[in-house]
């Protein structure tokens, strides 16, 4: 399959003797938006981190050759006393001023020189999240993995960011893997949905797999206990 960006086969991950992911297989195509759903503790973040080579695993992970991967982690904290400006943070990536401004536009942030001079640690958690997304996108990765990117952003902000990101991704032809613990608007924008709870629950285009029966599989199983 020439247009595969990623192929994962029979992934097994253990944490402290406990199985966190079991026998998971899926793939990601070029320009595809894949949403990973699952209840809290289903192993979604572990899956992303395994794909990135941050966790030991059994099985097979095959990325397309020379691919440039970007990652938006779930947790990202900056001390308010750290004198690191927004601009300096972007400069870590050796990107030009123009690329910084373009990336800030993707996430609907202001691009004034005054804002660029602000300390990263003094931004609100929502602003910081948007900056992080823009930072990851600034040097145009081929694939972006986002772990609960909208946590801490209000509903209005979410819609704006989703719309603008979706447009940008379509323009740039990036592949996206987005982890979310809640089912919402976002799922409609996916090309395929992968639901997991340690094991694969279902995998396919949203119009086919998002059924009441399947949803009960995700959220029912977490309620039983």
């Amino acid at each position: 399959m020439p247009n595969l960006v990623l192929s994962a086969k029979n992934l097994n991950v253990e944490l402290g003797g406990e199985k966190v992911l079991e026998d998971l297989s899926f793939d990601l195509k070029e320009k595809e938006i894949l949403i990973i759903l699952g209840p809290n503790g289903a192993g979604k973040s572990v899956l992303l981190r395994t794909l990135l080579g941050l966790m030991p695993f059994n099985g097979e992970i095959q990325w397309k050759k020379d691919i440039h991967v970007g990652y938006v982690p779930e947790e990202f904290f900056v001390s308010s006393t750290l004198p690191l400006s927004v601009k300096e943070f972007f400069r870590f990536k050796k990107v030009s001023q123009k690329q910084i401004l373009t990336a800030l536009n993707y996430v609907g942030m202001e691009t004034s020189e005054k804002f660029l001079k602000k300390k990263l640690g003094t931004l609100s958690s929502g602003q910081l999240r948007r900056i992080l997304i823009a930072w990851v996108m600034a040097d145009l990765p081929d694939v972006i993995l986002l772990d609960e990117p909208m946590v801490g952003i209000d509903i209005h902000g979410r819609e704006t960011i989703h719309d603008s990101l979706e447009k940008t991704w379509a323009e740039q032809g990036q592949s996206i893997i987005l982890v979310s613990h809640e089912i919402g608007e976002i799922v409609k924008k996916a090309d395929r949905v992968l639901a997991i709870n340690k094991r694969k629950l279902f995998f396919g285009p949203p119009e086919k797999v998002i059924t009441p029966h399947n949803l009960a599989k995700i959220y029912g199983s977490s309620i039983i206990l």
Partner: protein
Amino acid sequence: MDLQLFYSLIVGIFVGGTAGFLGSLMITKRMALVGDALGHVALPGVALALIYGFNVSWGALPCLALGIVLIWFLEMKTKLPMEALTGIVFTASVAIAFLFLPESEVSTALVGDISQINLSDTFISVILSLMVFLILRNIFSQMILINLSEELAYVEHVEVKKYNLIYLICIALIVAFGIKVTGSLLMGALVITPAAAARNIARNLFQYSYGSLIIGALSCAIGILLFKSLGLPAGPLIILIASFIFLISLVFRKK
């Protein structure tokens, strides 16, 4: 100006400046007290150097290397917190040093003596400080990124382990050379205080890191000049000047 004073000033400015620059990274990585602890770890080597009359930095370096490896090894074996192990190793080092450190040399070992410094020592201190400064400047943004998120750094192809090792070697070198200036008891302050002062007033990383460098160098220069005119020991004067600058920085603290 007499030659000895000139050498002392040069060493103070270069080592103090680099220590300040290093401190801006150490505070960020919550490793502020590591410089302090390593200063103590070096003490047995400093004692040997004082007894046999060679440069204290050369005595300090093998002790630091041994201490760092020992802490790393114990952490692997016991999984106890790093700070507890560092505490054990540094107090044991002080205890060993005091078994054979001559009483007449106690003050030199603890608070330094920069008055007896020759041309070759000066030359080596300058070269090594410059080298460490250039290395730190090169790894600075990667180290800050590692501090913000190790995983993010890894994904951005920063070799985290390699950078941490280089950083640790830089700390060991600066502690070894700083001991010559302020002694093992006060070495920690040479790293922490200038950086803390700069952090209070800086708006960005550039101001922060170079502010630390300038405050470190300035504290050493003023401290050494005061030592010359007052006759009080240079090490404590340097640290008091840095502490005074820190107090002033509180007034101008940026929210």
